[in-house]
């Protein structure tokens, strides 16, 4: 009985965090955003050096063959440092799709490149969790047409796209008939955008099936939940530290009961989320019967708690929290992004209800 992280996992997370801190943390993020960078190559290379880009890819294909729990604690670290690097798409979902549904030549071609960080893969599956307007991709006579919005890790070399029937395809960024349009969101650390396909010839993953798409969604949701965990934990810590420093009425504001209770409410809501994210990630690895419902709950619950913490931590900072000076808003906005991507809380909870047969 050992519910928690192994020594190796603690070390993995620590080494990623050490790298992210060393690489500049918030300063690096600010630069990425203000310079309109599209790919933080230095960060990506550093992460590749730590094995992060090949984290879940089997060793046979050049990766390190670790678990979803390992992937989740890396996501947590990236959230904590509001890191502007591609991850959930390129390091988790795209490799996973290839591992589950790719044929040998696809695996042999793509997985080692992804593992090495030589190639970045975007993932276009957001219509599978709810299509806005007329978005959606249709496969007709082997050609893909339509639009897919909110591509995860949009600034990519190749895209994994899902069609309306759940089929998965690889589409290179320079494929004829593919038009890319960048979409700016509040979260400058997560480039996103839309793909418009006009009779594009993609490369189908032959093992595609609803179960694989389902797993992609589940895994993606847990990763964004983990990202929120890290971001919210950092905001909480910043708020507590600030409250001990900041003086008003001749005393540190941390001595005011209202401020203490705001912080207590934050940690009381957030701390159980840590175990929840661990459990949900472990369920992806080892408890398949529970994995989908647990992923939904982790995503929805972390979104709600993350929103609460983002707001309260800002409030504890008073006016400073609202400014760009302390940069707290990078975390606030990242949590906001994580809330909506792959389905907002209500959408995801309805999914949980459906999975249990409570709704049609």
């Amino acid at each position, binding site marked *: 009985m050992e519910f928690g992280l192994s020594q190796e996992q603690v070390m993995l997370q620590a080494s990623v965090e050490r790298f992210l801190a060393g690489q500049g943390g918030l300063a690096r993020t600010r630069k990425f955003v203000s310079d309109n960078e599209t790919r933080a190559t230095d960060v990506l290379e550093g992460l590749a050096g730590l094995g992060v880009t090949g984290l879940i890819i089997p060793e046979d294909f050049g990766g390190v063959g670790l678990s979803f729990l390992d992937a989740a604690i890396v996501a947590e670290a990236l959230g904590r440092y509001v890191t502007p690097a591609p991850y959930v798409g390129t390091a988790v979902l795209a490799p996973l799709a290839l591992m589950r549904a790719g044929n040998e030549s696809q695996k042999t071609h793509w997985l080692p490149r992804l593992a090495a960080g030589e190639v970045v893969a975007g993932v276009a599956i957001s219509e599978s969790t709810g299509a806005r307007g007329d978005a959606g991709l249709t496969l007709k006579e082997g050609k893909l047409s339509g639009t897919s919005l*909110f591509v995860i890790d949009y600034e990519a070399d190749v895209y994994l796209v899902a069609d309306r029937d759940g089929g998965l395809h690889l589409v290179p960024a320079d494929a004829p008939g593919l038009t890319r349009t960048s979409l700016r969101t*509040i979260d400058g650390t997560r480039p996103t955008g839309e793909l418009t396909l006009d009779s594009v010839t993609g490369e189908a993953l032959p093992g595609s099936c609803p179960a694989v798409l389902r797993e992609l969604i589940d895994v993606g949701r847990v990763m964004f939940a983990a990202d929120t965990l890290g971001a919210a934990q950092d905001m909480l810590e910043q708020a507590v530290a600030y409250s001990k420093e900041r*003086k008003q*009425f001749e005393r540190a504001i941390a001595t005011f009961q209202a401020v203490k209770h705001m912080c207590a409410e934050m940690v009381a809501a957030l701390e159980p989320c840590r175990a929840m994210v661990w459990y949900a990630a472990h369920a992806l690895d080892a408890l398949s019967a529970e994995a989908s419902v647990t992923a939904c709950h982790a995503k929805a619950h972390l979104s709600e708690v993350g929103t609460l913490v983002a707001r309260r931590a800002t*409030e504890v900072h*008073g*006016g400073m929290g609202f400014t760009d000076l302390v940069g707290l808003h990078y975390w606030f906005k990242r949590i906001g992004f994580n809330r*909506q991507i792959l389905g907002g809380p209500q*959408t995801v909870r309805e999914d949980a209800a459906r999975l249990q047969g409570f709704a049609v």
Partner: protein
Amino acid sequence: MDLSYGPEHEAFRQETVAFIEANKHLAPRPGGPSALAWQALLIDRGYAARTIPRAYGGYGADPDILKSRIIAEEFARAQVSPGLGGQGISMLVPTLLEMGTEAQKVQFIGPTLRGEMLWCQGYSEPNAGSDLASLATKGELVGEDWLINGQKIWTSTAHLAHWMFCLVRTEPEAAKHEGISFLLFSMETPGIEIRPLVDMTGAANFNEVFFTDVRVPQHQIVGRRGQGWQVANSILRHERGSLADPNTMLSRVNALTDMMKSETLDGRPVMDNPIYRDRLMQIQGRVLAMRCNDLRLLSAAVNRQNPGVAAMVVKLQGTELRHELEALAIDVLGELGLLYGDTPRLRGHGSWQRDYMYFLGLIIGGGTSQIQKNIIAERGLGMPREAKLATA
């Protein structure tokens, strides 16, 4: 219970409507008539600076809250500019009328009303936010001048303003609230540096202002030395309620309603989703409560009654409600609700995200929600003030 405004006021409303209809082509717009000419016309006809004495450049009418409300309602309904606002007109002018010298009134009120003299407010400092009275910007009397050194923050329009009204500590030996003076000075005085303060919405809605040996003539003080706290406090309260106008909230609810009818998710209007619909109804109900409360406040003002705690809760409830309203819009839009700035597919010109963040700023600004709750408990419910701390 009588929600009508009565025949005299209904006639005034007709007049107002007719004026707007006849003159709206003169209202300011990019490339069109200027805001200053429009302001002059409005003052001349009594739709701006209505109750300011003619001697100081106003229209000189007797105060009539309903007429003021009617003017506000009808200009809003017609979506025509109601003239100039800003902290000079809304805060400094009433202050001068109450506490200024005759010379100050003559010098400052007219140009301010006409829009020739724009003001910014120098109150908050980095270490004096909720605890404003701990402000440390120093004013020392050197010869005939105040010599000012220090820093202000949250100064909106500092980069546009001609003048500042400013709280400065002039009596360092006096008790905290008794050592402050209220000074007026030109923003062109040497020694003033303005730095824009970018906030989470991405805009620089505010500034930091730094003072290095700024010289202000001794007579540019309102009230007496050390009386600045009382001067400032008499108008601070006016600022708070205005941050959460329920009629603005109602138009946001209506915009949200329209959006929920037109946006689709998986091919169905979002309004068909019972959960979002229920959240919309919750918000609509809460906005209705605040609108009713606002009617009560208006009625109390007209009938010169003290609205008591009903007025004190407006800022706390209104800013929170507005923040939640915007949050619902973002949830309803899902990933589309994340879009911000110059981007395709942007909804509502980005106003949902902007106001979601901006109203979090307002929950904090103008007296944080925590400070508001202290005030409501102490002044509204008669609960004791925070117990005094032992001097450590």
